[in-house]
């Protein structure tokens, strides 16, 4: 007689416990975080391996809400002294003014240059200084270029 046929003969508690165990086993199998290769009997040893990657130390921030229009807004430009951003940024500023006559463009020449991110664990002086300039100039948006 198999186990399922035996179940009604046991006390209610035992049957319930065993059923719970089967459910737990099924749930565990479904939710286990371990990836396993599709089983293929090869006779080769199976290796249980760990991840090589590091744990992240950053907190994810929330993206700023999008603007409803650029009319009446201040768009600041920042350049990295590279890849002819001294040509593309002014051209963009001009095109934006044509499309949105009420937009205020702060050219890259009136802004600090872009810089590489500070090394992890070092003071964020340049970042904080740049953020202060964004506030001082009333930047609603920043266009930065060029990356290549």
């Amino acid at each position, binding site marked *: 007689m198999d186990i399922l046929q035996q179940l009604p003969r046991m006390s209610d508690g035992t049957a319930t416990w065993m059923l719970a165990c089967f459910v737990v086993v099924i749930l565990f199998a479904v939710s286990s975080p371990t990836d396993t*290769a599709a089983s293929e009997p090869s006779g080769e040893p199976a290796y249980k391996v760990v*991840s090589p990657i590091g744990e992240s130390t950053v907190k994810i921030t929330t993206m700023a809400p999008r603007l409803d229009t650029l009319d009446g807004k201040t768009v600041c430009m920042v350049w990295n002294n590279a890849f002819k*951003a001294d040509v593309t940024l002014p051209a963009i500023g001009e095109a934006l003014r044509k499309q949105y006559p009420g937009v205020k463009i702060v050219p890259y020449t009136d802004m600090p240059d872009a810089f590489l991110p500070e090394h*992890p664990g070092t003071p964020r002086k340049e970042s904080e200084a740049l953020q202060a300039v964004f506030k001082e100039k009333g930047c609603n948006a920043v266009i930065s270029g060029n990356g290549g």
Partner: protein
Amino acid sequence: MTNPGFDEQARNSAKDHGIPSLQVAVYPNPFDLETNAQLQEKSAKILVPQIVDALINPIPASKGTAEQRGGREIVFTGTIDQVNRYFTDKGWSDGMSITPPTKEKVEEFLKYTDYAPDQEIAVLPVANLRATPWNIAVNGVMAGCRPEYMPILIAAVQAIADPSFRYTNHGGSTHSFMNFFWVNGPLSRQLGIDHGQGLIANPVNSVIGRAMSLIERNIAGFRIKETQMGSFGKQLSWVLAEDEEAMTKLGWEPYHVDKGFAKNANALSAGYSTLWGRNLIPSTSDPKILMQVVAYGMTTTEAFASGFTGQSRRYVLVEPGVAKILADGGYTKRSLREDLINTGRKMTYEAVFSQVYGSFGEVYGSFDAELEKALRDKKTEKGKLPPWYPRFPGWEEIETTPAIRMVEFIVCGDPARNKVQTLAGGAGIAIKEIKLPAKWDELMEKAGYRPLQEFFLK
């Protein structure tokens, strides 16, 4: 705003700094290959619509950072082939066969350090991930390192994490800067880290280099097409040791002693270069001419080949036989460095040509404007044409610009040969003490090594 491909780098790097959905406008062609008219027209027609869309339309929901699941849980179970395929598909492997990093193998490595397994050794750019002895060991296992290489790997991570190494500047660069490492001290000899013929290809050196390349991928977070934009890709890191016994005979101090370490201390240094090196074959027994040959090789080996005159840190790998000619000729490392810097100059016209037309991205003025600026620079001088140019009438009037500024010497390579190899990288460099665990001697005896003391320099 970026060129294609760099938008992915921008988004991934932004996520690594906590910004889930950086908005990027993509310009279709390399900026530096376009005329100003093309740049202006395409900026208006192609970039501006993307910019407006990014600023005023809702951003699609982002998945946040890429999966960064460190920790000690088992992430996969499979055969060696399955593990390799899984790791490659995840971007955790370089595609070459890895040793599956089981907990047992990792724990073997942890015996060779007194740091706690989860102690933060460093937070590495670009991905701001935490390097711990545990995940350093995992990458060491994968690379095929032996557990006793663990102190080397930890010191190497500490070196690349040092702000003076400038990893943030160069790790993702299109110029494919390759990290490399050299080891000083008796530990290098005890472990068999090669300093002789073929050194970087010795398996001991190779696997340590590979481990550091895997760490670059998995803990620093530099991956091609994501955050590492080397145009032609990177080779694996290479590892050298200095031939300190040869140097002792020459009367030259080993590299780490120059940097303030005791002779029998163990130190690891980290540098980076855009190329494995320019091979020189000095074929003279005249030390002065030999120096000039090396200066010639260095002057024509810039980090970016052009456009970077005088800004590279040069590494000069000198074989012991060549070093002997120089030392017997009265050169110390200091006087050699001085002579190389004084000798290694470029014609100013040539330097400006390479900067303006071979710029690595920096914006320059017109050739005439930049030449005029360079000719006014006080470092530009007449009468210092390098010795490899003929002394034709009027040679004294040719202006030249210094082409060598920073030089490091590493004595290594085949002692039976007359080679010098010059590498060129950026300014960053770091040196760290290699810390051994308290039970090092006992562990190494069990592992079958001769005692560390036997490898001390007298």
